C-alpha cells in the first residue's frame, strides 16, 4: 500500500485480557519498528525487525509483550494479560533498511485503553 497501515485504530479491553495489534508496512520495506507513546511522553522503542535477522527485542517492557513478523511483511504485537499501565498509542513504522538515510514512515497508531 501507499503507507503503513495499523489496525485496529482504537481498542478498549478489560484488564487481564490479551490483545493483538497489527501492522502492515509499506511494500518492499525490510525494516519494521514498534514504538509506544504514552500520554505526554515521547516515543518508547519496543522492538524492530530487519529482514531475516533475529529481531531486537531490547525495548519490550515485560514478557507479556511479544511480536512476530510473518513472511517479512505483516507484523503483530501481542500483549498478554493486559494491565492499565499498558494503555498507550502503539505506533508502527517501516523503512527500506537500517541505513541512516532511510527515513521511517509511521502508521497512525493503535490507541489501546485498558479498563
Amino acid at each position, binding site marked *: 500500500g501507499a503507507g*503503513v497501515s495499523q489496525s485496529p485504530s482504537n481498542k478498549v479491553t478489560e484488564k487481564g485480557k490479551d490483545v493483538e495489534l497489527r501492522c502492515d508496512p509499506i511494500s518492499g520495506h525490510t525494516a519494521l*519498528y514498534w*514504538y509506544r507513546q504514552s500520554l*505526554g*511522553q*515521547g*516515543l*518508547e*522503542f519496543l522492538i*524492530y525487525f530487519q529482514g531475516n535477522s533475529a529481531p*531486537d527485542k531490547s525495548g519490550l517492557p515485560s514478557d507479556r509483550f511479544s511480536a512476530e513478523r510473518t513472511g517479512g511483511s505483516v507484523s503483530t504485537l501481542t500483549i498478554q494479560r493486559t494491565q492499565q499501565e499498558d494503555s498507550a498509542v502503539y*505506533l508502527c*513504522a517501516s523503512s527500506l533498511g*537500517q541505513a*541512516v*538515510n532511510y*527515513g*521511517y*514512515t*509511521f*502508521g*497512525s*497508531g493503535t490507541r489501546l485503553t485498558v479498563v
Partner: protein
Amino acid sequence: EDQVTQSPEALRLQEGESSSLNCSYTVSGLRGLFWYRQDPGKGPEFLFTLYSAGEEKEKERLKATLTKKESFLHITAPKPEDSATYLCAVQLDKLIFGTGTRLQVFP
C-alpha cells in the same frame, strides 16, 4: 546513557512570531538526527535528517540546524497550521526520540 532532551515542552506563539525549538543529545556514535512533526491522532511525519555538525536544511518556514551537542528547529513567521508536536530523534541502531515540543500558533 544515550539521551535526547527537547525544550521547551510547550510553546505558544502569535502568528508571525518567529522562534526556535531545541533538541540536545548525549549519544555515542550519532549517525543522524531526525525531526518529525506529529499532529493529534496521527503518527509522526518526517521533516528533516541532519548528518553532521554545521549542516542546515530548510522546508518552507522551517529550518533545522545541527551542532555537536544539539539541534535547533527554527520557525520563521509561523502560521496556525504549523501547530503540532515537533519531535527530534537520534539514529543509533534504531531511532531514540525526545519527548517533543508542543507548538501552538494563534492567529
